[in-house]
């Protein structure tokens, strides 16, 4: 009985029906929250006494970095589910999340550089978080590149799935080793992440932006899954009906 229910949940058709009404409000809410968060962050919150106004980039940098790491884990879990239980939707989900996660990683790198320039005088620093983001970017790109190298998409799904599973085990290891490497060579004591305790006026926009960006990424990924479904299942009748309606 529950198997039937689960099957219906993971069927492309019911996914389409659910996301028809779920996604537009999701997207709108996330954009609104982002606007509120950005306003609060850029205008309303206090300035950091050491870094001045440049700390405001943190409100974009930290959420995007968090989203990128979160995204990789979700992608890896989806790929694993698809590989082990052979659920096509799970593979499609992993594939859809990948570019979104990669874009978030890229944004984190760029905002990190923008943060770095006024703070340390250079466009790039080998700070622990930025370096981990860089490696994460390579992992995302590797996933997408491997998948697109296969002519048979479903084979590519499985291959990329193996890669994601191997990669996700490595992510905490990479994270740890980069931090360790960084402490070896740390010259300045300012950490990009900011101080451990943050006043509420800074914390609120930060958390808001984190939530908003993750919600936004989720909505975008879910839209991408819809596209993926349209592409892969294009011969199915229910799709033909939809498109002609």
């Amino acid at each position, binding site marked *: 009985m529950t198997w039937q229910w689960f099957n219906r949940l993971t069927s492309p058709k019911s996914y389409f029906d659910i996301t028809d009404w779920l996604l537009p409000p999701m997207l709108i809410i996330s954009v609104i929250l982002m606007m509120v968060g950005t306003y609060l962050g850029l205008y309303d919150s206090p300035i950091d006494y050491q870094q001045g106004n440049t700390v405001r980039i943190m409100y974009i940098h930290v959420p995007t970095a968090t989203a990128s790491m979160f995204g990789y884990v979700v992608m890896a879990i989806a790929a694993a589910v698809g590989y082990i239980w*052979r659920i096509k939707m799970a593979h499609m989900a992993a594939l859809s999340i990948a570019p979104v996660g990669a874009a978030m990683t890229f944004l984190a790198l760029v905002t990190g550089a923008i943060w770095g320039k006024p703070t340390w005088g250079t466009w790039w620093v080998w700070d622990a978080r930025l370096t981990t983001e860089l490696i994460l970017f390579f992992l995302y790109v590797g996933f997408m590149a491997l998948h697109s190298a296969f*002519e*048979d*998409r*479903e084979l590519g799904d499985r291959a990329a799935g193996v890669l994601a599973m191997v990669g996700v085990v490595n992510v905490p290891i990479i994270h740890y080793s980069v931090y360790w490497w960084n402490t070896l060579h740390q010259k300045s004591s300012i950490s990009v992440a900011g101080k451990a305790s943050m006043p509420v006026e800074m914390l609120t926009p930060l958390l808001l932006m984190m939530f908003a960006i993750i919600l936004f990424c989720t909505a975008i990924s879910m839209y991408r899954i819809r596209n993926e479904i349209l592409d*892969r299942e294009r011969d199915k009748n229910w799709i033909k009906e939809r498109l002609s309606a």
Partner: protein
Amino acid sequence: MLDTHKLILQVNKLGVRRSERWLFRNLDLKLSSGEIYQVVGQNGAGKTSLLRCLCGLLPEQEGDIAWQQDDEMPIIPLFYGHLPAVKPELTVLENLLYHPINGNFYNGDVIEAALHEVGLGAYFDSEARHLSAGQARRVALARLLIADSKCWILDEPFTALDVKGCTWLEGIISSYVKRGGSVLLTSHQPVSLDVELKVLEIVEDMNSHV
């Protein structure tokens, strides 16, 4: 070898998918010892895919494949496929010494006898890169003779064999089947054996076929 009519392989509702297309679905098959099936179908229908799937090279998408047990060990079919599986930098003898068959490695005498039988007696120590395509295939065929296998799965085994070779192979297959072995094969050329040859035709939905 085996008592005849012992079930070797049971396939239920097998469906195989390739390049995002179902090649066939709902395929049922029961293979017993002493039986031989020829798999037929159009080009691209999925004959090779079926054989590879039964060997475990292609993960099936739906249905199940149940190789039966013999002495508590699952039966491993001997697969003879499109590529002869001969390493050019090893000699003919080494090729057979160092590649396992049916989970076992075999030693000199058995291999030499088999090589004589396929007509490669003079080539023991030649590197396989010096062989012609037909000769390379004979090395692979020698594997059939060496191993003590319950089931042969042959994909276009007559390719690159001359007329004498084809006749010889047909004889080998017939005597194997009479001894109780089971065979699944595909072939573009007509096959004439002196045992009953059953036919399995592949169409897209095997249900409608039954």
